[in-house]
Every structure is written in structure tokens, then in C-alpha cells.
């Protein structure tokens, strides 16, 4: 977004209103990403805050090679990934309670069925698998960008995405089959 350049300059000069604009512009999509990664409303809230604070602190390091959004998503994904990794390392410290998405009554039953299935299928994935899949499928990040977030080789990212898709398909394919 072209508007971002001027807004970022303002924020770097210490204009709080400029940073507020960035928060307003991006917070919902950062939340969505964080939720997809952690499956927890509370953790997603924490990650959104952490991502914006980190972004603010590191604005000077934003070089405009990617869009501001991509840069911010990468920060958020890193925070989420750190959180998942440390939860795996300390399994007794449970992450916030997993949320069930709000039921959407207007939608047809099959759609609700698929959504619930997606919800449980996503929980079957490991932290790496979920992060790689979400960043590729929903955020359209490149394999190289994902490799940076996860700190693994691009080939390992490809394998991770493959494993994620296989797990997801096992749960989802029976629901989708009839074309």
C-alpha cells in the first residue's frame, strides 16, 4: 500500500497518530494470522500486541523491500512460532484455552461442518506444519519467506507443507468429495 510509506515515516519521526493508523489498518489481519497459528483467542491477542510493539521498536530496520504488511506478518508469525515452540518445550505451561470459533448460524450445514473439521484438523498439525501451511495457504508467503520464519531450509519447508496437507486431507477429503 502506497499510503504506508508516508505513514511509516511519520511513525519513525515519533508521530503517535501515524503509528495508530498502521495499527488500525493491520490489526485485524494480524489477529487472524495469529489465531490461525495458535488456535487461541488469548494467545492471538498477546501476539498482536507483541508484534506491534516489536514493529514499533524496529521501524528503523524496515527497509521497504517487502510491503509493511508482509514485514509485520513475519514479525507476528515469528512471535507465534516462538510461543508455540516454548509451549512445546514446557508442556506443563499450557497455552491459553483453545477457542471454538463462533458458530455462524446463517451458513449452510455443510459449510459449518467443514469449518469445524478445519478447526480440528488444524489442531492435528505440529507447530511447524501449521505455521508453514498457514503462511503458504492463507498469507501466500513464498517458500523462502517461510523458511526464514521457521529457520529451516526451503526443502524442509516443502516437506513440512506436504505433511500438513496430508493430515488435513485425511480429515477433510471425506466431507468435500462429491463434486
Amino acid at each position, binding site marked *: 500500500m502506497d499510503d504506508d510509506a508516508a505513514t511509516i515515516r511519520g511513525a519513525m519521526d515519533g508521530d503517535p497518530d501515524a503509528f495508530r493508523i498502521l495499527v488500525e489498518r493491520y490489526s485485524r489481519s494480524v*489477529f*487472524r494470522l495469529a489465531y490461525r497459528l495458535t488456535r487461541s483467542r488469548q494467545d492471538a491477542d498477546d501476539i498482536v500486541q507483541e508484534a506491534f510493539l516489536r514493529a514499533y521498536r524496529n521501524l528503523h530496520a524496515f527497509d521497504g523491500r517487502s510491503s509493511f504488511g508482509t514485514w509485520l506478518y513475519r514479525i507476528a508469525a515469528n512471535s507465534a512460532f516462538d510461543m508455540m515452540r516454548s509451549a512445546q518445550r514446557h508442556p506443563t505451561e499450557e497455552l491459553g484455552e483453545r477457542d471454538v470459533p463462533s458458530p455462524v448460524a446463517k451458513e449452510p450445514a455443510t459449510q459449518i461442518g467443514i469449518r469445524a473439521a478445519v478447526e480440528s484438523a488444524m489442531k492435528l498439525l505440529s507447530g511447524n506444519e501449521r505455521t508453514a501451511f498457514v503462511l503458504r495457504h492463507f498469507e501466500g508467503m513464498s517458500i523462502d519467506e517461510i523458511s526464514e520464519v521457521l529457520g529451516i531450509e526451503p526443502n524442509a519447508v516443502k516437506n513440512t507443507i506436504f505433511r500438513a496437507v496430508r493430515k488435513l486431507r485425511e480429515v477433510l477429503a471425506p466431507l468435500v468429495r462429491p463434486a
Partner: protein
Amino acid sequence: MTHLTEQQRVLARYCEPLGSELASHLASCEECRTAMDDLGRTLDSIDDPGPELPADYEEVLWNRLRWKLANRRRTRDRWLATAAALVLLSIGVLAGRLFQSSRNVETAQAPGSARPTHTSPQATLATAAVTGQVERTERLLVEVSNLDSGTGDLRHETRAAERLLATNRVYRAVARDAGATELAALLEDIEPILIELAHGGSDLDASELEVLQQRIESRQLLFKLRVFSSSLRAESDSERLRPRSTQL
């Protein structure tokens, strides 16, 4: 005729275009096309909107962030102001000491003449502040030098570097202005390392970490820091032993 494997289909969808041979197989093979369409339908069905957010989500978030950002700025400003004041005092002390010792060499002191001191309690505190900064930097660089490239998590070091960097900048500028060239040069040497750690921090990969470790070693930074901190410690020890007669 070999059909596409499941992995090739997934990679084709998400990672890389099919090679020409596989692509022409796919174009002519009904079975593979059906499998590919099945996969596509399943993946297209994956929608994951998450919980609905309240209408005032952005506003609530901003109010929380604003408070944290302001708090952060206030703390940092206060700390920088204090640090600057301490450093000014401290540089004054160090410069005075240096000047004093060179005069002592030139003119042998008359017996019994008390060595004039520049030690007020504040100045002693100030020397301790610079000593603390130098010692903390030394500890951080030792930690970084000993890191195994597979460790990965540098968050602790990043935060330490952020804190040290802010004061390092102040100390360096003041030291330069006060003519304490040795201290200024040392702090100048250290600054790029702190910047790299503070900004690249937890995202540093193994090869970047290695470069950083080599730079610490090649510039003999640990050695210089050790020499400086031990001379500062000697300085403040002799301060403590000296009779508190003529105070500034």
C-alpha cells in the same frame, strides 16, 4: 506410464510448477487430473475465519498499545537522562585523574602534600556507572562468543544488547566531547556489535552469528573491555582507600 505422486501434486499446488514432462503427463492423464482436482477442491474448502472480533477491536488495542509505548518512551528518556548526567560526572573524574597522573609523573610530588582528589560521592557513583556498563558489555560479548550456533534463541541477548546500546550511544558521545578518547574509541568499537545484536537479535541465523563472533574476536574486543574494566576497578578501589579529607 508413471502417475504423479501425492507429493508432486501438493508441491505443484503450493511450491513449484511441474516440470515439462510431468506437466504434459498431467495434460494427457485423466486419472492424474481427477486426483489433482480432488486435491484442489479439498484445499479450496479450507477457510478459517477465526472468532469474530468486536467492532471496537482496533480502538481497544490502540489504547493498550499507546499506554505501553508511552510508558516505554518515558522509562527510556528518564534512564537516558540519568545516564547522561552520570557519564558527564564520570568522564570529568576520569579526565581529571588522567590529567593528574600525567602531572604526577612530570613533577615529583613534594613529601606530605596530599594528592588532590576529585571524589565526591556522586563522582564515585559515576565511575561505578561506567564500570557497570563496561562490565555488562563484557559479559554479553562473552555469552555471545560462547553461543553454540545451533542454540537459536537469542532473545535474552537481544534485550540485553538493546539496553546496553542506548547507554553506549550516550556514553560514547559524551566521552568524545570530554576528550576521553580511549573510552570513546572503545565504545565506538563495540557499538556495531550491539546494533547487530539488538536489531537482528533473535532472527540471527547460524552464519550471521558466526560472523558476529568472528568480529568480536578479530577486534580483540573482549581483551580491550577486560583491560578497561580492570583499570576502572583499580581506580575505584584506590578511591575507596583514600582518606576522605579534601572532597570536591
